[in-house]
């Protein structure tokens, strides 16, 4: 079986000692010594407060940390709780820390957690990010309750985000996932999420673990698999998501595990998405969206410069990906001054769909196609920042909704390009 290779003998022995559980919480870590202790403490408090009757286990899947992350997890799992004296468990709360082979990869960590949940027959599971600096005990309830009590198979989070946080999610992942797979999931690439044992078993059986998507961007494909597999999906409001959290200074790996995974998924699920047209909302516990507006110092000039330079330098690469009209449009946009610069919704969506079609046809190396999208995303981010600089939260939401509708309206373009020309 697939999970046999990912579970080491020692880990397997520890799991067998635990026996069957109701709730399993996975924490993927890699050099998270700064935050992991607090996360484990809060997690224990959450489980004791909200699920005292459940047999629970916390599984820490570590990618080979060199900063004593695993020691801190073990220490936090046996230390006294700081979250109130009235927390008592009716069952033993187990905590196991294991190091998976192959170096740090969130996909392998998820694989380890899923394999453990399958072995322990856990009915409700959750994955919590170890770098969540503002993780709260209530998050456990928000995520797990719909799975444990309402029979949902996947619960993704909804965060209160700053209007300029998660630009790639707002400009590409959410609108395109919504247009393609017809489900309005705000955070399709979640850092924290809960899922049923049924969905864990379904995803574990997929033939992805030896591929790139099985190492990076796996959580995103997990969401897509839940939608395409017809599982019950819900969203749960979690509260603030700090904008510095999970900041990825290098956009290329971020683009690989988001746009790369999304484009790759189109090939796998063509029969599912080619007939879906209108998007449907998913049940949401709490507000569907909340946007904070505090001032943030952002350099738009650099984004513009990198877009202009990218279009100029990558013309030979973009020629093989984009249609003549789209490329000409980008060149025109790159030729105007920063103040007049605009990468419109239509132009952005056309670009993305042409990239997706080029990826499907492998017109050049697929990884090169994904990399070539990075400077164009910077241009789009510039326009998003400029458009939403001095607007209210509702207007930001309205602008995101307009972009989503543009993705949905232009979906037939992607279908016509899929097996036809550019």
């Amino acid at each position: 079986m697939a999970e046999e290779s990912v579970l080491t003998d020692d880990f397997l022995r520890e799991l067998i000692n635990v026996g069957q559980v109701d709730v399993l919480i996975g924490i993927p870590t890699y050099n998270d010594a700064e935050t992991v202790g607090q996360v484990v403490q809060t997690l224990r408090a959450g489980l004791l407060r909200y699920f005292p009757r459940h047999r629970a286990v916390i599984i820490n899947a570590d990618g080979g940390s060199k900063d004593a992350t695993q020691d801190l997890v073990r220490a936090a799992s046996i230390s006294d709780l700081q979250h109130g004296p009235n927390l008592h468990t009716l069952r033993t709360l187990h905590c196991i820390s294991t190091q998976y082979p192959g170096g740090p990869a969130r996909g392998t960590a998820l694989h380890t957690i899923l394999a453990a949940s399958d072995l322990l027959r856990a009915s409700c599971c959750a994955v919590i990010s170890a770098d969540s600096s503002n993780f709260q005990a209530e998050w456990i309830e928000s995520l797990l309750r719909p799975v444990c009590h309402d029979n949902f198979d996947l619960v993704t989070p909804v965060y209160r985000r700053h209007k300029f946080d998660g630009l790639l999610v707002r400009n590409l992942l959410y609108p395109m996932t919504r247009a393609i797979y017809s489900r309005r999931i705000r955070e399709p690439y979640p850092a924290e999420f809960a899922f049923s044992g049924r969905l864990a078993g379904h995803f574990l059986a997929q033939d992805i673990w030896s591929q790139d998507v099985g190492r990076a961007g796996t959580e995103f494909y997990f969401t897509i698999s839940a939608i395409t597999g017809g599982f019950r999906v819900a969203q749960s409001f979690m509260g603030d998501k700090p904008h510095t959290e999970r900041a990825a200074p290098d956009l290329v790996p971020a683009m690989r595990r988001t746009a790369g995974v999304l484009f790759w998924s189109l090939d796998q699920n063509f029969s599912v998405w080619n007939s879906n047209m209108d998007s449907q909302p998913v049940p949401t516990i709490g507000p569907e969206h909340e946007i904070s507006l505090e001032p943030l110092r952002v350099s738009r000039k650099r984004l513009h410069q990198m877009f202009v330079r990218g279009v100029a330098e990558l013309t030979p690469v973009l020629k093989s990906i984009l249609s003549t009209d789209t490329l000409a449009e980008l060149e025109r946009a790159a030729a105007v001054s920063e103040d007049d610069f605009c990468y419109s919704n239509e132009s952005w969506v056309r670009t993305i769909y042409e990239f997706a079609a080029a990826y499907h046809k492998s017109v050049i190396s697929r990884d090169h196609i994904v990399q070539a999208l990075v400077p164009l995303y910077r241009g789009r981010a510039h326009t998003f920042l400029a458009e939403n600089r001095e607007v209210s939260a509702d207007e930001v939401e309205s602008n995101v909704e307009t972009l989503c509708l543009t993705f949905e309206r232009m979906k037939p373009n992607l279908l016509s390009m899929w097996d036809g020309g550019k």
Partner: protein
Amino acid sequence: MWDTIVGELIQATRETWHGVLHFLPRLMGMLVVVLLGWLIAYLLKSVLRSILRLARFDRLSEHWGASELLNKAALPSSSELLSRFVFWIAWLGFILVGVRALEIVGLQEPIAKFFGFLPRLFAALFVFFFGLLAASFFSRAALLAAVNADLPSPRLVSTTIRTLIIIFSMSVGFEELGLGEHTVLVAFAIVFGALMLGLALAFGLGGRDLARRYLERRFVRERKEEKEDELSPL
């Protein structure tokens, strides 16, 4: 006297006629071999073209960047080019077999040499073709990496990598063909050495700040906090 002349003439005519009669079947044989060769080469070309189309060789070639190179050189698609190449090599082989059947003494050795040369020609073309593909792939990878890392002169980096790989594959190809082995090798060593020295000097003198910034970004964690508000894309 007259009889002798007539006899000699008849003898000469008879010998010529004999020669012609002796040569004609070989000529006919050659023509048959050449025609048959054309037919076989044509069939080979058609079969290979179909196989390559079924195997989506053009897409593979596009994927590796070979199609781009062929377009620039106004050449047909990769599958068409390969099919035509096989056609000409096969037909040329048959032509030479036909010529050999004529048993013209002076041509035997060059023909044998040509057949001996064919495997080396194939090996050289193979090396050169894959050299071009590698040059295209790695130069594009370098261009993208340089643009996304906001490094100066990405096209220069990309072109340099492409040129180096092409020169390298050409030198290996020529060596395989046995053409100017030492000249090409020495020329390559000089060009490569000069380039490396130039790059070493350029990076050493001009790239100190860049190297410092890179090392700081790579190894000094505190730099992260000093940045302008970093926007998380996710």
